[in-house]
Structure formats: C-alpha cells, structure tokens
C-alpha cells in the first residue's frame, strides 16, 4: 500500500502531470488524485477505448498485448497503462510551453 502511494506521489510530482487515476478492470476508479466528477468521467470514457485498443492489438497478433496507450490532443495528453487484469493508471499530462 505504501509503495503504491509512494509511486503515485512520484508520478504526480512530475512536471506537467495533472492527475493520476487507478481504475479496475471494469472501469471503476479505485484511487485518484483528481476530483470525483472528472475521475468518473475519465474512467467511463477511457474504459471502452482501452478495450478496443487491446482487442485490436490482440486480433492482429494473438501473441501480442497492449502495453501502453497514449492519447495526444491539442491541449494535453492522456497516458494509459493497462495491467493484466486491470486497465490501470491514467495520467494526464499537459504540454510544455512552446
């Protein structure tokens, strides 16, 4: 538990990171550093994306599996790291100044 907390803190303290969410395999958030509404929204929306991405990768090559998913937008970037059972952490990063 302490490790988890510690690593979360480490991630959070990185430059440009807006928040971290840990989500279980069904998409229910377990731990988060953002506010509740945003967390829930993120969790719900990204759940399907991860499933789709994972299925894509696996269909193309069944031996393969999704390791990381980055969604880059104009304003920020969402990083998703899926675990075996749970589609894991989501990190919101903001871009650096141009």
């Amino acid at each position, binding site marked *: *538990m302490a*490790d*988890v907390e510690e*690593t979360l803190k*480490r*991630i959070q303290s*990185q*430059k*440009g*990171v807006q928040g971290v969410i*840990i989500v*279980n395999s*069904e*998409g*229910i*958030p*377990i*731990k988060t550093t953002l506010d509740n509404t945003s967390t*829930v929204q993120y*969790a*719900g929306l990204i759940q399907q994306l991860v499933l789709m991405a994972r299925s894509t990768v696996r269909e193309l090559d069944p031996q393969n599996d999704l*390791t*990381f998913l*980055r969604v*880059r937008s*104009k304003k920020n*970037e969402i*990083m998703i*790291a*899926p*675990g*075996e*059972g*749970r589609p*894991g*952490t989501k*990190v919101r*990063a903001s*871009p*650096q*100044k*141009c």
Partner: protein
Amino acid sequence: MAPKKQRRSRSAARRQEKSQPHCIYPLALTSATQELFECRADEDVTRDRPYKLLRKHAIIQDIKTRAAVSDFSPVEQILLDYAEEEILLVFDNDSAFGQSFYLDLTPEAKHRLTKLHDSELFEDEMRKTPEPKNSTSFITEKEIEQESVKEREKLRLKFSRLQVELGTPVSLSDYNVADSKHNYVEFPSYQDNRSFIKVMQRDCGIQAVSRLQSDATQTAWKPKKNDFTQYSPQEFSQEEKEAIIQSESLKNFSKSVIPRVLCALQQQEIGDVFVDDFEALGTAADAGDLPGQTSDLLVFHKGFTDKMHTKDRKISCVNWHPTIPGVIAVALTTKKGEELIDSAVFGSRPSYIVVYSFSFPTNSQLLLRSPGDILCFEFCPSNPNVIAGGCINGQVVLWDISAYVTCLQGTQPSGTHSSDNKDTFNFDEKKAGTPTVDFSAMSDIKATHKARITDIHWLLPSVQVSSAGVPVENTSNISVQIVTCGLDGTIMFWDLRVPTVPEQPLAATKQEVDQRTTGTSWSVPQPFKHLRSTWKPLFKMDFSDEHVPVKFSMDLCTCHRNTAKELSENQPDYSQLRIPPANEMRVLEDVNTRFYAGTEDGEIIYIDWKVGKDESGQQFSPKPLVCVRAHLMMVNTVQRSPFFQDIILTSGPLHFAIWKEGVTEGPLVKSQWSGDEITMGCWSLSRPAVFFIGKANGCLEVWNLLENGVKPVHVQMHITSSRITCLKPWAMSLRKHFLAVTNDLGSLRIFEILRTLYHPSKNELSRMEKYFEMETDYLRFWQDKEKLWSKEKKVAEKPEQKNVEPSRSIKSVSTAEEQELKKYNDFKMFEESILKEMGLWPSAGSKNTSNPIHKMD
C-alpha cells in the same frame, strides 16, 4: 276429231254403198297400212270389235304420201267428199263385201258408230291419257308448292272448362256472323308474349378484375424511445477501495505498470510532442515572398496635390484622421529659403493644413488656416474634430472642424456642385469651394515657446497632468491636454480647459490678443473662445539649451495605440470644462512619467517629467536620466512601437536606432551608415518587426528585424521625386493598409501596403520580444565586457604609463578599445552567420530559453 273422221269414212262408205248398198266400200288394207292405222287384223280389230274409227286427215295424208300405192287410193275421191272427220272402218271377217275391210259411210252407220265411237274414244282416251311431259317447266316446283294450297294439318282443340265452373251447367248456343257487331268474326292476331324470337346476339360487357389488389394502412405506431436516461457511475465504497488497495494484485500491477508510465513521462520531458516541426518550417514560406514575385511591396495608390496651396511648399507633417477612413491632413510649410520671413507678420501667403479625402483625389476637402507655418499637428484622440498644431512662431494653435465634418465624411464634395472631377474648374470657384477653417484658439504669445514648436502630442484620456506636474486621474475621459516641445529647449504641457482660478486679470491681455487676431473673421462657432484670451501652459520643463528636444515620445501619448479607440460621441463643450483643483484629483502613482526625447544635437535623452522637489522645497527642472549621443545630428524621429511599449525607434540623419526603455546602456540596435540621409522612420502598424525608413533621395526602405538586422529587407527606389519628409502608416481595414509618404515638393502619395508587409508572420510578437531580450543581453554583455577589458587594460598599463606617456596609454587604451570593438563586431558577425547556418537565428525560440553561446565565461 275422230268422230269427224269417222263420219268421213262413213260418208265415203255410203257412197260406195250406193253403188253397193249404202256406201259401203270394201278395202283391202295391206299389213303395212294396217299397222299404220292400227287396225291390224285380228289384233286391233277383231270380230267382236270390228269398228275402227280412222281419221280422215290421216288417210288423206297416207294417200298423199303413198299416192297410188296407198290402199285408199280408190276411195280417195270419196274421202274428199266425205264431210265428216272420221271414217268408220269395219273389219269384215267374212268378206261379205269382197274385201277384208270396208268403209262404212252410211249415216245410220254413223249414228251407230258415234255411240260406239264415243265409247271407243273413251276407251282410247282412257288408254291414251297423256303422259306427263318430262320437259322443263317454267315455274319451279317449289313455287308450285308454295302456290298450292295444301291442307294444313288438322288442329285439335280441346276445350275444358275452368276448374271453378266444373260441374255447373253449360249452355251452348250458336253464333252467327250476322249477329256480331261488325258482321264479321275475326280472330285478330296478337303479339304472343311467349317469345319466339331466338336471341342470336347480345351485347355483353366484360371487365377484368384483378385478382390482387394493393392496399395500405397506416398505424400510429409509436416506437418506444428513451426520453431520458439517467445514470450514475458505479463507484466503490470506501471500504472496498481500501480492501483493493491492500490487495496483492494491486501491488503486482503497480510494479509492472509504473515503470512504463515513468518512461513515458520522461519521454514527454525530453521532446515536446506538441510542436509540429513541419508547421514551424512554414514561417519562412509565408513571411517572405517567393522569388519572381513583384518586387514592389508598396503599390502606389493615390497621389494628392493641391495646386493652389502646395506650390513651393514642403510638407512638414502628415496625419490620418483617426475615425473617418480615407481622410488625411498635411501641413504645408514654406521651404527653407523663405524661412527668414518673420512669421509673426502675416505673410502674403498664409499657411494651411490641407485635408484630403480619398473620395475626391483631385482637390482638397478642407483647409485649415494658420497664422504661421505649422511644423507639426495632431488630431485629438477623443474628439477628432479638434486639431492642435504647433506653429513656427512658437504658438500652439487649435482648430475645430466639427462644422465641416460632414464634408469629410459624406460623399458630397465640399462646396462645389458641378463637375468637380473634371480638371476644368475655375480657380476662383475652387477657392470659394474648399471651405477654410480658421483657428479657434492660439496660445498666449508671451507664455508660449520662444522658438518654433517641433513636436506636439495629445495625452491619453485616462491621464492628465496637474498644474503641479503630477499625473492625476482624468475622470472626464477625454483628451484635454497637449504636450509640446520646441527649439527653445522647453517642453510644455497645455490644457484645453479653463483653470478654476484665473491667475491673471484677463482684461489687459485680452485686448492685446484681440488686436493681434482681428485680421481674420470668425464665422464658425468657437468652442475654444475661452482660451483665446489667455492660454498658458499648464506646466513647463526647461532644459535651457543643454538639450533642446526636437522630438519626443511619451508613454502617455496615443501613438496609434489600439486601445484608445472609444471616442465619446457627444463632443464636450470645452468652455464649460474646468480644471478641477489639485486636491480633488487622485494622484496616479504607477504612471510612467519618463519619456524619451531626441535633441537637436543628436542625443537621446530619457527623462522624467514628474516634478521633484529638492531640499529647499523649490521645484527644479529635471536632469535627464540617460543621455546618449546616438545620432550625430538633429534627431528626426522618436517613435514608440505600437506593439511594445518600451521599444522606441529613433532616427537621425545617419543612423537609426532602437531603444528599450530601461536599458540605459545604449540602443539595442543601431544601423550602419548606408550612404543616404535618413529623413524619417516609422513603425509598421501590423507587424512588430517591420518599420519603414524614408530617405533623402526619395527611397523607402523596409526593415524587418527578424529577417535581417543589417540591411533592409526591401528597398523601394524613388517612390517620390524628392526628399521624403514624412511617413505615416494607417490601417483602413483588415486588408487595406496604407502608407502616406510626403515629400519636399508638397505632394502627398498614398501607397498600399501589400499583404506580405502587413500580415504578421507566425509568432512575430513573441519572436520580437525574444529578439529584443537577446539584444539587451548582448548589449549588457558587451558593456560588461567592455568595462572589464578597460579595467584590465588600465590595470595592466597603469604601472607602465604612470610616468612615461599618459597619452600613449590613453591611445593604447583607446586602440585596445577599438580593437576590442572590432573583435566584438567580428565575433557578432561570426556568431550570426553560425546561428543562421544552424538555423537557430531568431526563428524557433521554443527549444532554447537560454542561449548557450552567450554563456561564455
């Protein structure tokens, strides 16, 4: 017939008989004759029937044919005499009279024979019924049948009584025809109801009926549709969360996943993923024009000259009207040769400010008359109908053109009704046509500048200056204050309003002023009447010939600032305004009271006009904070950049320089001597890095600091025929940018700025900022280095040069300095070239926040 014949034969016979008893003539008939007359012995005639009637005609005939041979020849004569037709021939079997036959011609025999004859005839006839001829009949048998009446079949009629009457007595009676009414009984025919007519043909109609028929029905089926859905997310309760967090699986998960996340974040830091390099490349392509395009970035648009007034004049100042598009005003002054004329006396030709409008390029729209040559003027930012100008005799002149604004705005030209587009107009007509506005107010000659006014500016509406020289808040939000500077070495602040406490008795000065100004007639309403009597400057700064300011630029002046666009609609009545007393106004502390001024000697001074108090409590004129001899001769431009409040462009005859406020070491950028005298400079209104430099030979240079800091980006040769005296850009709309260029001959030319020049390149503002920062760094660095080197040199050379050659040390120091300067310049060039090569010259500033090359220690 036969009986006649019989009688003939009998008569013949009788004659014979006479000879013989009673005309019996015996004949022998041959068998042939017997056969002929059908009296063959024992066949036709027999004993029982011996009598045969012969026809007389036949016998005669026979006699004729057979003449002598005939058996009847002996009796021929008798026969001829015989009267009867028929003759009786008797068979005599016994041959009583000699022969086998005899003709009996006696009358008794006749009678006897006639009876016999009749019976014989009858038998003969009976035997000789004529056979029906089988020949063709003329009528057919059918017709015969038709005509013939046949018996119809017999009718059987059965009469029966009605069932009702059965059993009742019947009475029968006769009915006679005569009893009937009409004497006849008829059974008329009637049409039988029973149809006997067979229907052979009947009209029939047939219609085909389709077996299938399409039909439609519509049901009002309302499909079920969700109107509202409301859902709430699934969430774990706190305990569940705790439980999960504690679980082993989470730990394993985090161990496996977290490193990836960290790796990704690190990548993020290393390279900024949000910068599109390709896009960033595009800046060079959009900013510059492709080779082969038109070389002129300024396209001649219009030219304005006023033949009447611009003859032998040069234009000293040009200004665009702030609100009305396409209206431009120029101030005309006499050329140098005529300056000696005393400008206090009305010259033979009064000076004008001519106002042109784009709608009527041929003639001027408005003339503003002034007592002397106007060297500079400006439109009031809050009320564009008020124009303030600085006169050659040191007075400040005000005009009010509110009566003629409609002329400028509208399509109707001023005054003239007929053919103003043609060139054939009367000079008189034109003179009468163009309205002239006289000045509304003039400053008090005693209190005003002693020499010509060289620069004039309006203060922004937000700030005003009190009589004590302290910036205070301006609640009325209109520009009422003017700042002027003149060649007498003073800067004066003027206020349009009447002071609450008049300082001097008005009566004495009023008359003097009236005397001076009686020459002109006042037809238009003067809003500045209150100023006419005495208009003194509010506040004065005296440099007393040390630094004679020629041009200045204040932060508080409008200078094309886009923010000061809200103009009050209702023009205030200036006579009613009063300067509020000093203690009522709120002092603004954060206003920048320092300004830059260019002097007659070519110095740029940075000075604070806020009055300070020295120990004795008296006010003293401030000393300049910074004074740099940047230009060698009279400065002709001091202008702030419209984008950066602290960047100032100054130009002198030889160079131009860019200064940053606060940087006291010197100019950020200083140009090299290019060979031609620079007469004017002005910033571009839309591009932070671009400015225009006008030259004495009529060329216009376009400089772009971001592209090339050493030479102009574009040179447009000879856009005017003579020396350029004034440049003013203006943006009429988003796409139309104009540059007004005036020259020595009094003509005004408007050029249209093409897109490449007015459209800012990417991030130009930020790049310019960086550029200026870099330049300041350079400057500071160089200054430090210089100081260091000079110190070093002094230290090094001090023991040597203590005695021997102080001059040489100075010389060496100076040569050392020169050498260092040379080295530095070389180094700068070298660095520039390298950076350009590397592509790091001030384009994409994203990667390097600090220039590593500068950190040389």
